[in-house]
C-alpha cells in the first residue's frame, strides 16, 4: 500500500508514535498524521518554524520533537486524534538536521551544521554544545554537516557527518571518545540496535557499515566500538537505515530497500537468512486496452497513452522481429493540482481513461478518428466516489469499478458518447474500515472480486449487485488476483508466494488448489522476494495461468505435475537440450522465463500476443542524481 504524495509536501522525517500512529514532517513545515486505513493524510499541524528537517518521537511515543530550518527544536504532545504544541526549546542558528531522544526522555540531541547540541527537555536549555568540525584536514575545512545522530542510554552521542566520520561523544564533558572514518564521502544515516551494541551507518557511496561494541579482551569489561562489516548493496546514497534485532534494513536513493540479515543472529539457515532486495513499486502502474492495443502508463503527475507497434513477420525463439509499425505516443494527460496520481485505468476498447488523485476523480473519453485523437472530459462525474484506490473496467468497457474506502466498490456505467451514471455501491456485509486496493472483474461481467486492506477477498455478483461470498481469510496480503474467463475461478496470489484457486460458483477452493496446498510449492518458488503483480489466463488453454513478478514471467500449467523440492525449478533451458521423450518426463507445472530486466507489466493481448513492459534498473539509476564517484582499482 502506498500513500499518494503531494508535490508541495516532501517528507523529510517519519516516525511512529503512540502505538500505531504514523507521523510525517516535511519541508512544507507541517506535521502530518497519516490515515493508514484511508491511505491519506489525516490532519496536519503547522510547526511554525519553517521547513522541518527532522522529527523524533520519544521512547514511549508520547512526545514528538521537530527540528526546524530556523534552528528551533519544538516539542509536540501526541494526544488522541491530534498533536498539540507543547513548548519551544532553546533556539540556535542553523537548521536542525537530526534529532535523537535519550532513552529516558530527559534530553535531546540535535545535530546541525558544524555542531551538535544537547538540550534539556524540562528546562528547554542547551546544556552542551559540541563542535564537530575539528580534526579535519585543512583543504576540506568547509562546513561539516551532522547528518544523523543517536543518543545512547550510556550518555554517549553518536554522530555521523559529511566527512564520513562516525564519532562517539561523551555528552556531559563534550569530549570525543572515538572516531571512525568509515567512508571518504558523507555518512548519511545511522541506526542503533536495541541492545546498543551495534550501529549501522549508511553512506553516500551506497555502502552501509556495521559498527559493533566488542570487548577488547576476553572477559574484560573494557569495550570498544569497532567497525566490522561493510555491505555494498546500493548504488546511490543510503538515506535511511534501521537496525532490527535480526537484520539491517537500508533504503536509498536508488529506490531499493535491502534487508540484510545478520548471520550470527540467525539460528539456522532458512528463508530468514537470505538477503532480500526490494525494488519498489509492487503496484500496477500500467494498464492495457486489449482490444485497442493501447497501453496507459501512470506517472506521478501525468498519464501517457501509447499505441503498440506491430509486426507482420514470424520468427523462431530468440529472434528479434522487425517492427512494421512503430509504437506511437498518442496522448499525454497532465493531472491538475499538486497531488500525485494514485491509480489509473484504460478501458479494453481504449475509449475511456480514468484516473484518481487523493482528492479528485477524473474520467475522460478518448475518441479515435483515424490517426487523430481527441480527449474530452466526461462531465457530471458523481461526487460521492471519492477517493478512489483502484480502478477497473469491465471487459465490455461498459462499466467502471471504483475501489473506495470502507471496503466499498462503486459501479459506474459508462455511457456513449461521453457520459456516466452511478449504478450501485457494493459494500461488504460485515463492514470494514479498510479501503479496497485490488479489483478483478470476470470476463462475462457477472462477478467482481475486491480485496480490502484487511486482506479479505469479497466476491460480488454484478447481476444482482449483491455480495456473493467471501474467500476464507489468509494471513498474508493479496498481491494479485484475477477471475478465469471460462471457469470463473478466482486465482489469488499472496505475498508469501502462495497461489490459491477459488471457485466462485461453488464458493470453495478448487481441487487443484487443495492439491497444491497439500503438496506444497517448490522451496525456491517460496523463497522468491518479489510478489506476483499480475495474473492473466491463456484463452486457448484453460489450464494455463500466466503470472509475473519483477524478475520473471511464469506459465503455470495446472495439467502438469507440481515440482518437488528435488527437481530443478527453472528448467526451461535444460529442457531445450533434452530429447522429446525425456522432456516429457521432466516437464512440471512451472514454466519460468527469467530473461527480463525488471518487469513492470505483462498481459496477453490476444491468444497469440503478449505485451510486456520492462523498466530496466539502469534507466532508473540513470535518472537519479549521479552517485558519489568512487574510484575502483584499475580504472
Amino acid at each position: 500500500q502506498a500513500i499518494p504524495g503531494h508535490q508541495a509536501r516532501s517528507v523529510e522525517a517519519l516516525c511512529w508514535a503512540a502505538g500505531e500512529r504514523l507521523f510525517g514532517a516535511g519541508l512544507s513545515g507541517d506535521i502530518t498524521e497519516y490515515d493508514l486505513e484511508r491511505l491519506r493524510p489525516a490532519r496536519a499541524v503547522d510547526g511554525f518554524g519553517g521547513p522541518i528537517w527532522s522529527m523524533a518521537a520519544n521512547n514511549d511515543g508520547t512526545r514528538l520533537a521537530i527540528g526546524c530550518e530556523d534552528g528551533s527544536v519544538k516539542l509536540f504532545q501526541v494526544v488522541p486524534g491530534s498533536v498539540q504544541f507543547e513548548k519551544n526549546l532553546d533556539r540556535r542558528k542553523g537548521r536542525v538536521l537530526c534529532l535523537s531522544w535519550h532513552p529516558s526522555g530527559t534530553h535531546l540531541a540535535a545535530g546541525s551544521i558544524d555542531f551538535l547540541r544537547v538540550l534539556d527537555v524540562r528546562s528547554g536549555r542547551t546544556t552542551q554544545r559540541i563542535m564537530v568540525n575539528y580534526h579535519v584536514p585543512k583543504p576540506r575545512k568547509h562546513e561539516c554537516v551532522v547528518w544523523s545522530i543517536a543518543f545512547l542510554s550510556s550518555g554517549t552521542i553518536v554522530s555521523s557527518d559529511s566527512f564520513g566520520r562516525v564519532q562517539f561523544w561523551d555528552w556531559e564533558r563534550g569530549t570525543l571518545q572515538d572516531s571512525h572514518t568509515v567512508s571518504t564521502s558523507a555518512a548519511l544515516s545511522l541506526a542503533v540496535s536495541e541492545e546498543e551494541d551495534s550501529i549501522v551507518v549508511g553512506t553516500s557511496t551506497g555502502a552501509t557499515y556495521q559498527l559493533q561494541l566488542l570487548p577488547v579482551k576476553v572477559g574484560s569489561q573494557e569495550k570498544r566500538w569497532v567497525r566490522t562489516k561493510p555491505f555494498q548493496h546500493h548504488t546511490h546514497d543510503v538515506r535511511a537505515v534501521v537496525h532490527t534485532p535480526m537484520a539491517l534494513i537500508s533504503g536509498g536513493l536508488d529506490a531499493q530497500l535491502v534487508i540484510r540479515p545478520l548471520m550470527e543472529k540467525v539460528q539456522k539457515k532458512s528463508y530468514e537468512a537470505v538477503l532480500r532486495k526490494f525494488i519498489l513499486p509492487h503496484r500496477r502502474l500500467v494498464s492495457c486496452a486489449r482490444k485497442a492495443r493501447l497501453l496507459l502508463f501512470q506517472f506521478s503527475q501525468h498519464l501517457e497513452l501509447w499505441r503498440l507497434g506491430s509486426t507482420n513477420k514470424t520468427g523462431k525463439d530468440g529472434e528479434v522481429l522487425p517492427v512494421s509499425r512503430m509504437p506511437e505516443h498518442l496522448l499525454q494527460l497532465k493531472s491538475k493540482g499538486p497531488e500525485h496520481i494514485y491509480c489509473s485505468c484504460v478501458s479494453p476498447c481504449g475509449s475511456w481513461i480514468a484516473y484518481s488523485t487523493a482528492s479528485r476523480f477524473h474520467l475522460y473519453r478518448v475518441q479515435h478518428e483515424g490517426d487523430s485523437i481527441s480527449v474530452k472530459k466526461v462531465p457530471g462525474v458523481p461526487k460521492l466516489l471519492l477517493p478512489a484506490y483502484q480502478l477497473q473496467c469491465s471487459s465490455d468497457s461498459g462499466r467502471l469499478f471504483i475501489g473506495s474506502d470502507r471496503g466499498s466498490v462503486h459501479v459506474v456505467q459508462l455511457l456513449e458518447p461521453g457520459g456516466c451514471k452511478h449504478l450501485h455501491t457494493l459494500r461488504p456485509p460485515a463492514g470494514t474500515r479498510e479501503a479496497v486496493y485490488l479489483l478483478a472483474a470476470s470476463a462475462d461481467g457477472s462477478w467482481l472480486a475486491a480485496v480490502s486492506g484487511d486482506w479479505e477477498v469479497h466476491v460480488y455478483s454484478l447481476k444482482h449487485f449483491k455480495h456473493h461470498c467471501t474467500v476464507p481469510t489468509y494471513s498474508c496480503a493479496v498481491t494479485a488476483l484475477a477471475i478465469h474467463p471460462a471457469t470463473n475461478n478466482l486465482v489469488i496470489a499472496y505475498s508469501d508466494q502462495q497461489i490459491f484457486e477459488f471457485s466462485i460458483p461453488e464458493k470453495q477452493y478448487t481441487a487443484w488448489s487443495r492439491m497444491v496446498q497439500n503438496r506444497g510449492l517448490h522451496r525456491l518458488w517460496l523463497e522468491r522476494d518479489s510478489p506476483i503483480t499480475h495474473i492473466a489466463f491463456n484463452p486457448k488453454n484453460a489450464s494455463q495461468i500466466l503470472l509475473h513478478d519483477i524478475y520473471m514471467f511464469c506459465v503455470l500449467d495446472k495439467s502438469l505435475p507440481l515440482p518437488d523440492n528435488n527437481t530443478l525449478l527453472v528448467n526451461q533451458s535444460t529442457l531445450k537440450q533434452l530429447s522429446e521423450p525425456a522432456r516429457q518426463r521432466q516437464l512440471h507445472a512451472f514454466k519460468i522465463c527469467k530473461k527480463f530486466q525488471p518487469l513492470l507489466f505483462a498481459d496477453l493481448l490476444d491468444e497469440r500476443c503478449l505485451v510486456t513492459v520492462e523498466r530496466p534498473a539502469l534507466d532508473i539509476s540513470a535518472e537519479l542524481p549521479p552517485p558519489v564517484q568512487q574510484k575502483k582499482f584499475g580504472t
Partner: protein
Amino acid sequence: MVAPAALRVVRCGGSALHGARAVFSLAGGRRAPSDPAGPSRPSSLCRFLLCASGDFVKMYSVATEELVRLLRGHSDLVTGVQLAPHNHLQLYSCSLDGTIKLWDFTDGILIKTFTIGYKLLALYALPTSEDSVFVIIPKRGERDTFQLASVKLTKAAGQDTEAKEVSVVLEGVDVSPKCTAFGRECEYVASVKGTNLQVYFFKRKQLNRFSLRAKTAKGGNNVFTCVACHPQEDCIATGHADGKIRLWRNFNHKKEYTYSTLHWHHDRVMDLAFSAEGTSLLSGGVESVLVQWHSGSDCKKDFLPRLGSAIEYVSISSDSTFCCTSHTDNRITIINSNLRFSKTIQGLIKAREVKTGLVVDPRTKALVLNGEPGHLQFYCLQTDRQLYSLDIVQQEYIHQAGLNQSDLVRVAFSAQGKWLATVEERKETDLELQLKLWFFDEKTQSFKLNTRISMPHEDRITAMCFRDTDELEDDSLMLVTAGRDCVFKVWVILEDTDPEAQQSLSWSCDFVGSYHNYQATNCCFSEDGSLLAVSFGETVTVWDSSTWDLKCTFCHPPGKIRNICFGRLTCSKYLIGATDHGFLCCWNLLSCALEWSAHLNIIVLQPDPLSEHIAAVSWLLKESSLFVFKPSEPRPICIQRKLCKEKIQFAAFVPRDVPETIGSEKYLWLRRSQLFFLTDRQELMTVSTKPLEERLTLSSKQLAVEESLPVTAFSLLLGKHRHQQSQGSVDFGKVIHHHHEQDSPAVKELLHTPAHVLPSASFLCPIFINSLLISKENKSAEEVPDEVEMESEEAEDDSDEENNVTETKQEDTVPIESLGETTYKLSKSEEKELRKIRKVDYSWISVF
C-alpha cells in the same frame, strides 16, 4: 688438527635471507666487558638483526648493516629464529635437521642443542611458557600434513639434550610459519590454512573454526595467506590471496564473531605484522610496497613504496623502532619506525634464470652471475655480501608477464679482470644479440663500456672466452665467441688512429672460422694461449691462435661435445671433453690420440685455475656426483657420489686467500681453491672437509682465546685499544711491524670505522702517531706475541673455512702467513712473561 672426515656439502653464503622472519635483538645488548665506553652510546648501535640463511643464522648490525657474526651449527636449513623470551641475549633457532639450538648470539656460543627428532618447520617461543616452545612438525605417516606441537625443553645440564616431550596442540596447520600466530599473552593460537581459520584457546581448551567461502561473488579469493595477532587486544589479522586483510574480533564466540576488511593490496598479502602496541599494522605483498594501517581503519594508511621486489616477510622489533622486510630477491630492508627507508642488506640475488654460469672475477675474486634482470651481480663469498651490481642491458625492466626483454646470457673476464665481455639477447620474432666489451676504469673503479657490437653472430652465442695471456700488451688480448650460426669469431683490439675519436681502443672481428657447417658449441684456450679448441657438434677442433690454422680434430662419436677444457700446469698437453653420450674423454695433444675415456654423464666440467685438477659433475639417477681428477691420470683423485639430489648447473673454483691445510691426500685439491656450485634451484653450495662438530667446539674455543668480541665496530675499536694498552709496548711493536706491511691496523681502523662511532681524536691521536713511527727495536723479540696469537688464529681459521668473521682477523692473518713458515725459538723467560700476560687477560672471563 682433527683428522678430516668425509667431504660434506655445505650451503655457503648466498643462501636465501628470507627463510624465516628475521628478528631484532633488544636495544642495549650487552657490550664487551673491556669496552670502556659509557652508556651514552646510541641504542641502535647495539642492535642486531638475526636472520636465518641457509644452514646458518646471520647476525647483522642494524646500524652499519655489517655482518657481525655467523652462527653455525645446524646441518640443514634453518627454518626459524626466535629470541629466547626470558633472556634476550639468547636465541633459539630450529632447523630441518630436527634440532633446536640455544645460542648466546652476542658471543656466538652455542649453549644447548635440543634434539627433537622431527623436521622442524617453524618455531615460536613464548614469554609465558618458560620451558617450552612451539614448533611445526610433519605428521607421522602422512605426507603434507603438519601439526603444531609444543616441545618441553628440559633444563638438564649438558650441551646436548634430547627433548622428547612433544605434545600436539593443533592438527592440520600450514607449513609456512606465517600461517600460525600466537595471540595476546599467549592465550590463544590462530592458524590458517586454505579458507579455514582455527583459533585454539589454551586455558579453556576450546577450538573455534571459522571458514570462508573460497570465492566470493565479486571474484575475490578468500584463501588465507598469513595471520598475525594483536599484542594487546583480542584481534586477529589475516591476509588473503586477493589482497584483503581481515581483522577478526569476538572470535571467542562460535557464531557472533565479526570481522572488518582492509583492502589495498591488489594481489596476495604476503605477510602481516602488528606493532608492539598494536596500534598499527604493517602489510606487504608483491607490489613491493609496505603499507602501514593505523588503528584498524581503512582510511588511515601510510605507504613505503618502491622497495624493489616482492615482500616475503615483515617483522618488527619488540619496541617498534625498527621493522624490516625480507624480499624475494634475497634482500632485507631495515625501515625506521616512521616508515623511512634506513638500511638494506643484500644477499645473493636469485635471478629468474642463471644463464651466465658462475664466473669468478679475477680482480675481486667475487662470484659473478646474473642478478637483477639485465644486471650482473658481483658477489663476495668471503664477506657473503653483494659487492655491486653492474647494469649491462641498460634498459628499463618492465614487470609484465609474457614480455620478452633483453637478458644477459654470457659473461667472460680477461685473465686479470681488465676486460669484461657480455652477451645479451632478446628473442622476439627474430633474435637480437649484443656483445658488449667493458674496460675496467681504475679511476672510477668500475667497468666502462668500451665497444658495443650488435649482432656479432647470426644466431645464439654458445660460448665465449678470452685468451689468458699477460695483459700488459693489449695486442695479444683476444676474445673468441662461438655461435650456433656455425662459426666462431675472434675479436681483437684495434687502436684507433683517428685523433678525434673519444677512445683509442676498440674491438673488431679478426677471424671467422668454421668447420663443416656444424654449430660451434664450446670454445676454450689452452693455458699458454697458443691453442684454441672449438667444438663443432661431435668434433673438437684445435686451432693455432697465431696463424689460425686448423691443427687437428678429435671426436668421440656418436656423442656431441658438451664441455671441453684444457689441462693446466703439468697436464697442459691434455684436452678434456665431455660428450652428451655419456663419455668423458682425454686427448693427448702431442700424440693427437685418445689418452683415456670414462663412461660418465658429465654435465659440468670445471678446471681449477691454480692446479691441474679438474672437477666434473655427473648427473645420474637423479643424483649429482663429483669427480676430481688430473688429466694425466685416468683414476680420479676424489669421487663423491650422491653429492646432492638436485641437478648442479654450474660450478666454479674460487681461489682461497690463504691456502688451507688439508690433512688428507684425497682432498689436497681443495687446498688452494674452493669449489662452489649452483644447483638448478639456485642454491649456492660448496664442499668442505671439516666435520660439523669440530666447527662447534672451535667456535666456542675461539671465544676463550679472543678477549673482546667485537660487538660493534666501535667496541671492536675501543676494546682493541684497551687491549693494546694492557699489553703495553708489546703491542706497540706489533703496530710497527704491521707498518712494514704498509697497512697499519690503526690507520686501517681509523679509515674503516664510520666517523660517528669513532672515539675522540685525543684518544686516537697517540695510536695514530705511534703507527707512523718506524721501530728500530729488535724484531724477533716483538714478534713473539704475534706468534702466539697466530696459533690461535690458525685454529680459528680451521674452524671456519669460508670466511673470517671479523675484520680484525683478516688483518691479522696477513703477517701470520709470512710468519707461519719461519719458526722462532722462544727463551723460557719470554714464554713465562707471555703466559703472565695471558693470565691477566683471561681474568675477566670469569666475570661472565
